[in-house]
């Protein structure tokens, strides 16, 4: 059985027929809901964004071994910070001013009463996350069941995860079916391979009609190859070879979105072969080249180093002082039209 078969969650009463008396101290549990975005507590608690809070009360600060606390926290702990009722209450009221520089980006709990409820709740758990006299039992989810029937069944127990106990555990097959994303470091690449020549046949049959025989793009369909050294020219041509920073993006995008109108139809080996061919069209490899899950991360694209972080805040136009904004006679010369939209005449007719 679950700890709280009938739980009161943020004032919402989940009416379930298998009724058992409501257990007290639900306030503390409900209030702790706002902490669960970052903290876990209980026998199965695992490190989240914040440390596990098992047995935190009446102990020296930094309870979770191995958690990487901020320097601010380390300093406070070295200074002898211990969590008793008073220190915890002061901390929870305003974490960021109590320990200035803490990673706990949380404004604080408003009411003293709520703080006491939370502290009482924290005090329930020993360092293993167990509560006196309560034994946890895990529930088995059966996703193919009719949810209504399941909930009305006499032996229904709420799932044990999270705050609201909503949703169900994802099955491995389900995660595998959707989680196809690939990162520059190769995370997410499926095992497989394909060579440029095989890729050429696939490309000619399934991609060339839009992207052109050589990746030059037919009509207004996107260009995929060429454009080397055009990024500083008046009309830059941004292609995989001239612009894209990472090869993983090509693999990931083709696998998730192409061919346009028939997404997810290519096999993993097809995607390796087409990616190899796109490298060939961009003069990065020769036609013998075979791309594999093994050699994938050894291929770097030429423009990778030219991507920089957002530094818009350094621009002169971001340093304008509002109080010095000109309001009258700001420009000495009379107005002169330097460009007109009507000359271009590219606006669609009404």
């Amino acid at each position: 059985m679950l700890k709280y078969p009938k739980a009161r969650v943020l004032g919402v009463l989940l009416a379930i027929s298998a009724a058992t008396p409501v257990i007290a101290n639900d306030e503390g549990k409900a209030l702790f809901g706002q902490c669960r975005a970052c903290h876990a507590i209980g026998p199965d608690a695992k490190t989240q964004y914040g440390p596990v809070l098992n047995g935190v009360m009446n102990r020296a600060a930094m309870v979770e071994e191995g958690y990487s606390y901020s320097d601010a926290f380390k300093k406070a702990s070295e200074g002898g910070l211990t969590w008793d009722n008073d220190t915890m209450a002061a901390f929870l009221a305003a974490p960021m001013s109590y320990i200035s520089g803490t990673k706990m980006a949380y404004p604080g709990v408003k009411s003293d009463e709520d703080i006491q409820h939370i502290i009482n709740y924290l005090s329930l758990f020993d360092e293993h996350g167990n509560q006196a006299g309560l034994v946890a039992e895990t529930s088995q989810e059966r996703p193919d069941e009719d949810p209504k029937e399941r909930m009305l069944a006499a032996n229904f127990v709420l799932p044990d995860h999270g705050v609201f106990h909503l949703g169900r555990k994802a099955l491995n097959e389900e995660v595998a079916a959707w989680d196809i994303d690939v990162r520059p470091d190769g995370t997410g690449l499926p095992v497989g391979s394909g060579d440029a020549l095989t890729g050429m046949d696939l490309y000619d049959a399934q991609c060339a009609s839009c992207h052109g025989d050589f990746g030059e793009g037919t009509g207004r369909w996107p260009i995929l190859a060429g454009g080397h050294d055009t990024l500083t020219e008046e009309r830059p041509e941004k292609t995989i070879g001239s612009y894209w920073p990472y090869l993983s993006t090509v693999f990931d995008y083709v696998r998730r979105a192409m061919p346009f109108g028939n997404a997810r139809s290519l096999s993993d080996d097809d995607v390796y072969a087409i990616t190899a061919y796109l490298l060939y069209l961009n003069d990065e490899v020769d036609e013998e080249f075979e791309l594999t899950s093994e050699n994938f991360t050894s291929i770097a694209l030429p423009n990778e180093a030219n991507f920089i972080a957002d530094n818009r805040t350094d621009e002169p136009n971001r340093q304008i002082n509002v109080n010095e904004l000109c309001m009258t006679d700001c420009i000495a010369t009379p107005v002169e039209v330097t460009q007109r939209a009507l000359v271009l005449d590219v606006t669609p007719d009404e």
Partner: protein
Amino acid sequence: MKKPKDTIDSSRRRQLIKTGMAVTGGISASLVVASKANAATPDPLITEIQDWNRYLGDGVDARPYGLPSKFETDAVRRDVAWLTADPKASVNFTPLHKLDGIITPNGLCFERHHGGVAEIAPSSHRLMINGLVNNPLVFTMEDLMRFPRENHLYFLECAANTGMEWRGAQLNGCQFTHGMVHNVMYSGVKLKHVLAEAGLKGNAKWLLPEGADASHMTRSIPIEKGLDDCLIVTHMNGEALRPEQGYPLRLVVPGWEGNMWVKWLRRIEVGDKPWHHREETSKYTDLLEDGTARRFTWEMEVKSVITNPSPQAPINHGRGQTVLTGIAWSGYGRVKRVDVSIDGGRNWTTARLDPHSFSKSLHRFYFDFDWDGRELFLQSRAIDEFGHVQPTKNQLRAARGVNSIYHNNSIQTWHVKNDGVVENVEVS
């Protein structure tokens, strides 16, 4: 019901001809007649009994879902056919010049798709949370409706809004120059509640939302933003999301590039590094003059535009009392002030800001003035609560060149000629 309608229409046509007004110009001509200072002849709209004064209109059973008046033919989204190869991976634009206030009606919110509009039955939709979480979870729409709900008004601007204007004045109408923005009251749940349900692991730093449509849209979002103000929403302006806005589930990323607001949201992966997917490398990176490109330029900077008068909304009434209005917004917070110039930036007056001011929402400004009939060069300049000032086109080009495509928040100029016709121009 069908028959009387025919007679109404033909009798109305007779009446219009009788009163000497061309059928096509009927509406605007009557407006002009009514607004003349002295009428030579009595206005037949007043002296004669009109059809709608006599005959009955539609009953309550005629329009189960109400639509705008049939006379509002101009209040429609428009696209620019030459921009893209296929309308299923394209964009259309909000008719800003037809709107007032700060809410964008659902049917007029601009659309941007990469694989057409997915039509998904709520019962067939799932949201998965996986990656660096303690419990990978799957939610149905019913599950998601049981999280605590909130309402927030936010603008959504495509990072490419005004992108066609970098090199100079190009498109003649604020719908086309600035229409990739809308402002909607969203209802839904805080993303952090849904993430907490799965339990974030200690090394969780990035989120990858993914759409269920044929483009499987993905973007990398830092976890701090996800835990701050991001929402997972089911409703817009009170009703269920429109299909073209991601029905049944959309991610809301307040103040940041519209592309990140993944529609038809079906999965959020939690990771420790960004993914560098197509929409944050090939697209939505800002190429500078020296050949380097900025990436992860998420915030939409402070911006404004005058929506009336504008090329699609000329001044038809001649000189005298004139209402100038427009919208202003900032991805950082509230707009605090909007200045207006009618002489191409020589002199500025602070406009009247409508008091409905919300963080990361459109703001409405008005400037009422007495037009003397001379040509005007209209500009607006927004300032947000953090002191960010909307730059001029030249200031922005000096910093970025003209090949950035995205994040053009510069000051727009409209040229009003003596006859009230308006054109998109650039001035010295």
